[in-house]
């Protein structure tokens, strides 16, 4: 998976542990392993989807990749440069190439700033453009995301959820980034609006040659937008493959359970046999006290003795299809 040289982003053995403090002296009594030894790369122009349940570490991973959080261990390469240890000043020139769109467009836009101020703000911080140039660049992106140039004088409360998400996208794209992390960008929107935003994101990707990391919990949305998909469970990638391979031929019992848990629409026209559902019992264990060996074994219908002893490594089961499960190691 990391063979090609034209990877735009490369994540190598990244770990992010949050200390848990306790006792009267607030000493560190343990670690919450939010991201635990994750490696992958994203090619130029590609969309990598990351799915997982809440608490699986997918959002933390996104924040570590942008250095909004510092990794505990491991390296992050962006365009060939290791950015994992750059200091604040040195990382700044890279920031304009990496942007993020957040989930809730009601919380992520400052309600006291007009659309023009919101969209021009990243340019003030990250470029040396003049006022007129900034305005021009902002108008260009406003029109690209499907808003009108007049809208730039309005305030966020005057827009609906879908339009606000367009503003968030414009704000992320105004610095002309190469790489955009989309953290659940459509999960707060109604389905008809969700479709509009997803189509817009695809169009912008084609037009501007963007590379996306698309984080979501909705497997059908991820499938629609991604080229490759990684499945995370308790801070680790348990399976990563091309979209087609993953959705048609999932190996990991967790991926299989995720895929069969989605309620699907029965249109009654086709004779596709209903997939037998794999039901998981119980909840995600706490990431501060994960099970030994394979962290999924407590909910896995196929767990056997070896799973509690040894942690399975990611192995290449088919070309480009990696899975971390003892079922496939013999």
């Amino acid at each position, binding site marked *: 998976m990391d063979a090609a040289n034209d990877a735009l982003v490369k994540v190598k053995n990244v770990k992010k542990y949050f200390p848990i403090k306790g006792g009267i002296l607030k000493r560190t009594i343990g670690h919450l392993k939010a991201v635990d030894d994750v490696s992958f790369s994203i090619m130029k122009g590609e969309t990598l989807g990351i799915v997982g*349940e*809440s608490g699986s570490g997918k959002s933390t991973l996104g924040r570590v990749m942008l250095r909004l959080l510092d990794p505990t261990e491991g390296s992050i390469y962006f365009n060939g440069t290791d950015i994992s240890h750059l200091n604040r000043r040195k990382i700044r020139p890279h920031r304009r190439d990496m942007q993020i769109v957040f989930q809730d467009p009601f919380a992520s836009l400052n309600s006291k700033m007009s659309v023009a101020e919101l969209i021009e703000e990243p340019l003030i911080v990250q470029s040396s453009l003049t006022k007129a140039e900034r305005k021009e660049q902002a108008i260009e992106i406003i029109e690209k995301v499907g808003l009108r140039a007049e809208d730039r004088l309005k305030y966020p409360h005057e827009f*609906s959820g*879908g*339009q606000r998400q367009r503003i968030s996208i414009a704000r992320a794209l105004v610095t002309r980034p190469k790489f955009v992390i989309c953290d659940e960008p459509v999960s707060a929107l*109604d*389905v*008809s*609006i*969700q*479709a*509009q935003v*997803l*189509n817009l994101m*695809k169009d912008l990707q084609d037009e501007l040659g963007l590379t996306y990391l698309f984080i979501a*919990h909705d*497997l*059908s*949305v991820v*499938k*629609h937008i991604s080229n490759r998909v990684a499945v995370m469970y308790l801070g680790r990638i348990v399976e990563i493959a091309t979209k087609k391979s993953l*959705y048609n031929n999932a190996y990991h019992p967790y991926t299989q*359970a*995720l*895929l069969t*848990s*989605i*309620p*699907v*629409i*029965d*249109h*009654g*026209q086709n004779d*596709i046999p209903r997939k037998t*559902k794999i*039901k*998981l*019992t119980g*909840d*995600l264990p706490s990431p501060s006290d994960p099970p030994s060996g394979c962290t999924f074994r407590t909910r896995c219908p196929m767990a056997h003795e070896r799973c509690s002893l040894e942690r399975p490594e990611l192995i290449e089961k088919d070309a480009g299809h990696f899975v971390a499960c003892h079922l496939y190691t013999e």
Partner: protein
Amino acid sequence: MKNDPVLEVDQLQTYFYLRDNKVAKAVDGISFSILPGETVAIVGESGSGKSITALSIMKLINKPGRIVEGKILLDGEEIHRLSPKQMTKIRGNDIAMIFQEPMTSLNPVYTIGNQIVEIIRKHQNKSKNEAMERAIQLLKTVGIPRAEEIMKEYPHQLSGGMRQRVMIAMAISCDPKLLIADEPTTALDVTIQAQILDLMVEMKERFQMAVLLITHDIGIVSEYADHVLVMYGGQIVEQASAQVLLKDTKHPYTTGLLESLPNIDEDVDRLGTIKGTVPPAYDFPTGCRFSSRCPHVMEKCKLSNPELIEVDKDHFVRCYLYERKEGQ
């Protein structure tokens, strides 16, 4: 008895009287009924009036809102005529409701046991010990392990799925005839969602409850509902059995909703969209309320609002593209 509906709603209208003489017609003339053991789903986007319908049935509409018109019958009894005091006896006893976010419906400063026991003792004449036993039994019924210990824990100590199980335990504690579930799994992960929905089906069958399921997820409708109402702008625009609705979709809004969903079994390059957004409830277009977004809009759609007509047996549509079934 068997085929008498548990709930009958007839021409329900709930309006909100806003400032500047604006009237938001949140629910505008809804009629439907639910049989014992049946699940009726209401689907629609935010602002379509689906939650207000549920709150109207519970009579939990506060000022500036008001139920303007309509009848609500529970087992033949006209509950829309009851006083607020009489209504508190119905709520929790005959009708129970579970909400989207269990953390906001559970009290964070009381233990789980405390909260379930309170409900049981409020509605049933039981001693504290009897109520405790019943509470433990209920927690076991909804599949909570270590029920005795969970009784002593606080809501924040439980996961989202567990909290929703507690809510279901509380809801069924008094054997309700009707369970209203307003987006019960929207805040949960898919594997947990499947567990909770299966639990609801099990409870429904075990206690022969009628279930009103409010959701925006058409996948859930397809797998769990018997009958579906599609709401738009406070009105039902299409109504049919779940099977018929998904196979023989008629209303352009329903079609739009289905096409805008990414499908896990098929690949499409672009998703279908419905242009624009849901208009606010105080500013619907004249004529058909969907006319401002409809791809098939005609001149007459802008003039008057079509009636909800039966186009096939038990398949109702509110659209000028369709004509009444022969012989009606």
